[in-house]
């Protein structure tokens, strides 16, 4: 078979084809790698806002000891600043990640770069935020015990065993966060990233 001879038949191969109008396309969820990441980001942003509403509601729904309230507010403030920083970075990625009109090499290269950068940023963000958020959330839920503990921690000298326990708990929570976030990233983003990397490899011929 001569492939060149097929060109005319190839070009006429659309006779029975019908496509849905634009509004139908706009109603569908997209399935490109970037769109999936963008949708995940949007969901995460909404979830974070929602979790803050819950945290603040728990914090101010009933009177709390002043010491506990101050410590929690300072920690929450740090969390909000960290969240604002990372979500601003994510937003910049979200806005800039529409490069479908470049050449295939440039387009895929840019997507792979952005996706990889964003994945790393996401991991760092979660390792910073998750343990702190869990500690604050647990503190708010069990505020009675937490107040006593914070008071003891700030006014008494801490024994070596207690200090070791605190460091160990912190270490475990960071390792657990790192592990689970790694797992989540691998399941949500890594397969797309790997596939796009292989496409980039195919085009660069390496």
């Amino acid at each position, binding site marked *: *078979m001569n*492939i060149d*001879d*097929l*060109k005319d*038949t*190839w*070009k*006429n*191969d*659309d006779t029975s*084809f019908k*496509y*849905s*109008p*634009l509004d*139908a*396309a*706009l109603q*569908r969820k*997209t*399935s*490109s*790698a*970037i769109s*999936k990441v963008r949708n995940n980001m949007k969901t995460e942003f909404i979830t974070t806002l929602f979790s803050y509403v819950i945290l603040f509601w728990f914090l101010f729904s009933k009177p709390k000891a002043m010491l506990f309230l101050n410590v929690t507010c300072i920690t929450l403030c740090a969390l909000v600043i960290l969240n604002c920083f990372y979500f601003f970075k994510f937003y910049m990625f979200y806005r800039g990640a*529409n*490069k*479908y*009109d*470049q*050449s*295939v*090499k*440039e*387009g*895929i290269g840019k*997507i792979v770069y952005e996706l990889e950068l964003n994945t790393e940023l996401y991991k760092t963000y979660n390792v910073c935020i998750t343990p702190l958020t869990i500690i604050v959330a647990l503190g708010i839920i069990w505020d009675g015990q937490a107040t006593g503990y914070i008071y003891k921690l700030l006014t008494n000298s801490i024994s070596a065993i207690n200090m070791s326990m605190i460091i160990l708990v912190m270490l475990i929570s960071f390792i657990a966060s790192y592990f689970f976030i790694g797992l989540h990233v691998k399941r949500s983003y890594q397969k*797309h990233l790997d*596939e*796009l990397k292989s*496409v980039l490899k*195919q*085009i660069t*011929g390496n």
Partner: protein
Amino acid sequence: MQVIEEHKGMLFRVCRIYQDDNADRDDLMQEIILQLWLVFESFKGNSKIGTWIYRVALNTAITYFKKQKRRNDTELLTEMAYNLPDHSLHAEKEEQLALFYAALKHLNKIEKALIFLYMESQPYNEIALNLGISEVNVRVRLTRIKNKLKEIIKNISYEHR
């Protein structure tokens, strides 16, 4: 929409080479139309509208990931059987085209893009620009792909005898 209407044949052929079954093709077509709509304002008229559409369509097809499998393999096989060319009705060329499409499934995503642009009669320099590789590279790769396709077609024809 008028632009899409004018290029619908080309868009259909992109979907056909990148997705195997009809439902996935429809999904990909919707995705391409959506992306064309989303990035239309970035089109500054530096290139021909056709070239721009080729780029958006190919980039979308390459970065598109199927939704979870909705149908089992038996259903897919049944559908493929229905889509096989009817020997009594279709001309020899149509049969060859069906065989050609079957062979394209064995190529990787970039090889598909190259052969697609070649079949669309795009000049080598345009293919090079659209893919972001050199013209020499396009020529070398196309020769290899054509040989590979001939080999695959030979094997498929042999298996179906």
